[in-house]
């Protein structure tokens, strides 16, 4: 039982972190807690400083608006934290959409979904085009364009401020991932993940592979939502350095050979 549980240690920890953040946001609105006020686009922490979503702020800047210093500092903290320290861990440790798309990926693996991407093939790089498009549209339309349709924003806002349409959006993403494209939303479309991929190349926290221990069972590749980052598995020892790695730790916990581990610096 314990060994079984340890195969999900990071997964459980991630779910705890994701849900705790949502509960703190929710409690701020419901009971006036001051730990984390706002939502994932901008949050006030402990009533003293702000954290801000860099992509949302980039879009606001693209509309030609000057943003306050408080928010810029909040962006800087986030960019340093994810970009230089923990990588694209927002996607797997914070974002609530991750719970939905992980579930779809799990069901797909169990054989309930569509197999082999018959209907739609999209390049992983599409998210960077969506990101570019978000900035162009913000410039042209004078409003942060992705924030209007961002399922992360819609979901978190509705969890905090009351439900509306978000369930529909989540079901749509779930079905898309399950029946149309494997890791479809988080792995191909979402520009927030794309943005963090772009800035995470030089992060300190990385997954490290010791190839001597690796038996090339490829268990890690079956659970990884960004398989292309595991290119070195079975070939040579080294760090998983690509920015697209979300540091979710699934590869580490499923590895029977103890060949993978987190490495800080």
């Amino acid at each position, binding site marked *: 039982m314990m060994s079984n549980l340890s195969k999900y240690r990071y997964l459980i920890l991630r779910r705890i972190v994701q849900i705790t953040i949502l509960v703190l946001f929710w409690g*701020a*609105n419901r009971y*006036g807690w001051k730990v984390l*006020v*706002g*939502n994932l*686009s*901008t*949050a*006030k922490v402990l009533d003293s400083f*702000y954290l*801000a*979503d860099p992509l*949302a*702020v980039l879009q*606001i800047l693209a*509309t*030609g*608006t000057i*943003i*306050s210093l*408080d*928010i810029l500092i*909040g962006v800087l903290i986030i960019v340093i934290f994810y970009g230089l320290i923990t990588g694209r861990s927002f996607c797997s440790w914070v974002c609530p959409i991750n719970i939905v798309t992980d579930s779809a990926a799990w069901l797909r693996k169990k054989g309930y979904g569509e197999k082999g991407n018959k209907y739609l093939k999209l390049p992983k790089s599409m998210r960077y*085009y*969506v990101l*570019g*498009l978000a900035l*162009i*549209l913000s410039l*042209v*339309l*004078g*409003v*942060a*364009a992705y*924030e*209007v*349709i961002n399922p992360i*924003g*819609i979901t978190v*806002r*509705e969890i*905090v*401020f009351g439900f*509306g*349409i978000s369930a529909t959006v989540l079901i749509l993403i779930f079905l898309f991932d399950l029946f149309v494209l494997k890791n479809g939303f988080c792995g191909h479309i979402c520009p927030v993940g794309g943005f963090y991929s772009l800035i995470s190349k030089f992060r300190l926290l990385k997954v490290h592979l010791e190839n001597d221990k690796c038996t090339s069972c490829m268990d890690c590749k079956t659970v990884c939502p960004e398989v292309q980052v595991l290119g070195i598995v079975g070939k040579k020892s080294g760090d998983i350095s690509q920015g697209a790695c979300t540091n979710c730790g699934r590869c580490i916990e499923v590895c029977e050979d103890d060949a993978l581990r987190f490495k800080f610096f």
Partner: protein
Amino acid sequence: MENKDSSKISRGDLLKGIVKKGGLMMLGGLPWAAYVEENKEEEFVLRPPGAVDEKKFVESCIKCGICVEECPYDTLKLAKPGDDALTGTPFFTPRDIPCYMCTDIPCVEACPTDSLLKDLVSDDNNDKYDINKAEMGVAVIDRKNCLAYWGIRCDACYRACPLLDEAIVLNFERNKRTGKHAMMKPEVNADICTGCGMCEHACITEKASIFVLPREKALGKVNDDYIKGWDEEDESRLDSNNIYIDKNQVEKSTLDYLNDTGSLLNDE
């Protein structure tokens, strides 16, 4: 592509690649743009006090919802997809809950992006909040359905108004139909009304016969060539439009100018 060196891309292929990527981006971008445009063109939305004008507001609001959380009366809501405001931005519906005009204006105090601007709701020295300067909208009366205009005695809106006898006044008129009653017709002073919506909230007709509209929707605008000559203040409208009148250039008083026949009689 078959018999070409894969490391070299011909001009034709490059062009095809650009056309393909550009085309795909337009395929995704056009419906996206259409949705965003449709979503943001909500012209009858009422914003919190101190909100900058609507165009700047949708540009700068980061949709954090902190103003909504600070609002002690749950007046402010964050727009969901399908609401009559840009998704994620704060708005209020006075018929449900009006703005209760907090003197410490917590929503403005909390805004991290200056989408709600302190200067717009502060006194002239900018050192103290003055909620009565808010311009959230302006109340408009539907005289056809207002009971007071029928001659039935109702002053619910007048009593509810936080700027009683200033923003809404009652005009007394003789009821010609009965010949022996008074009519007490409410009238809104748009210069003073803040658009808090307490009147709309209080109105007793099934659908409110006094309601708040955004000022740019409810009010007209007079061109600069009409100035109230009897109102010294009114000339300041010109200054605000950056029209510069050099008062030093006018050497003579108006009367002197009209009496000066010198140049008229000069035939040269």
